[in-house]
């Protein structure tokens, strides 16, 4: 499944990339592609620079009062005064199929603050949290 994008293949951002599951090299689920970050190049071309993840990126897309709440709750849970959504550089994307595969492990990507908080403060404190499933 690893490899470059399929040669000559074109992707429709909303249809093939937005809301797709991001998967790390171990097959672990990282996040959803909640938003794409774009930038203008000096030559006038527009390029995708990053995948954005988390409620801060999702909220504005949901829109309305619910979208507003999603962002507000997320801000309240973060320590920083002006938190930024999780960001995965487009250079880390390895391939796109029914999921978006990235080349770095989810820990290294540092986009799952809530997961780690739950991990250390709740789940790891319950006996058997490291119990192997098989």
């Amino acid at each position, binding site marked *: 499944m690893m490899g470059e994008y399929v040669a000559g293949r074109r992707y429709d951002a909303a249809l093939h990339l937005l*809301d797709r*599951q991001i998967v790390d090299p171990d097959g672990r689920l990282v996040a*959803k592609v909640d938003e794409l970050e774009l930038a203008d190049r000096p030559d006038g071309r527009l390029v995708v620079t990053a995948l954005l993840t988390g409620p801060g990126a999702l909220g504005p897309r949901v829109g309305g009062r*619910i979208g507003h709440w999603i962002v507000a709750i997320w801000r309240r849970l973060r320590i920083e005064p002006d938190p930024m959504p999780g960001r995965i550089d487009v250079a880390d994307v390895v391939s796109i199929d*029914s999921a978006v595969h990235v080349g770095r492990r*989810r820990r290294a990507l540092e986009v799952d603050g*809530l997961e780690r908080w739950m*991990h250390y403060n709740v789940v790891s404190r319950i006996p058997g949290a*490291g*119990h192997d499933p098989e």
Partner: protein
Amino acid sequence: MRRLFAVALGILTAIGGFVDIGDMVTNALVGSRFGLSLVWVVVTGVIGICVFAEMSGRVAAISGRPTFDLVRERLGPRVGFANLVASMAVTLLTFIAEIGGVALALELASSVNYLLWIPLAGFAVWLVLWRVKFSLMENVFGLLGLSLIVFAVAVWQLGPDWSTLWNDASRPSVPASEDAPTYFYYAVALFGAAMTPYEVFFFSSGGVEERWGPRDLTTMRTNVLVGFPLGGVLSVAIAASTTLVFLPVGVQVDTLGQVGLPVAVSLGKMGLAVALIGFFAATFGAACETGLSVGYSISQYFGWQWGKYVRPREAARFHVVLLLATITGIAVLLTTVDPIKVTEYSVVFSAIALPLTYFPILVVANDPDYMGEKVNGRVANALGSVYLVIVLAAALAAIPLMILTKAGQ
């Protein structure tokens, strides 16, 4: 030989796992009030769940993506969110009903009030979700759930007039003692009980948990196409048993204890003991499935790591959701709300939520980007489209019928 064993085990657990508290209560109630005149709904529902479970199983096996993952991709974050909230509410309601069912089954076996069993039942369910391997959970409760076959034996032992039963089932009409809106209200309820949306969340996520690939398609199809219809036969057997014992004397089922009485009448203590094991296994197994489904749907919408194929601490948010769902379930039941009433509402609300789940599955199963050559064939699409219309009609009719009949009174 091993392959054969795996297929047989899969079919048996699909049969045993098919029936849950909603199926038991709704079928028993409908049998006692309407005889077999609503069997056509169970048949329609079983074919429907086969069509959509096969589709969602195939999508999971080919693309590796479970249902809710795709719901958001195809409906967008906004409609997907509304869908998440509605589906989760229904699944949570079903989860509460199942835990209540476990406690009621334990009460019947022990004479200790079900309210005292609820914390224990809830904790036991959580412990299974936390600790027990996915396939072990599926196999144990699926096989124990097979004890509900005792209802079929009971019907046979009661020595009914088979041709009358067949006539009632094959020429449906509204019984003289009931009016048409009530009849159709229970038709919607039975349909919701047979096609509960959690079954496809669970089935497709289970496929990912068990790492299905394209090679497993045949096994998956056999499980669905043989297991689910035989599970449906158990549902009909429950309805037939209450038809035979209760309909002539005017009993209307409203407790789990009544559901088992025909077995006692027909087969005595041994049969009743087997039925009790069946009640326990069916509700406990379904409690695990619905609990997991709550976690699956939230995690898949937000893209969190989910599943029992990783250590709990690797899926921390998922396990926090499971914990919160269990605590909520226990808390709601301790308000002394009647679990049977919760069940009756859960199946109707299931019917309302059906299109939300089934429409995206039908679309994705047709998408070559996910499915390659394994997109829906003509038969799957024809059936899928027909069922989309049926499911929409049932969903739209549910609330007006509920108001009109004061929830089936």
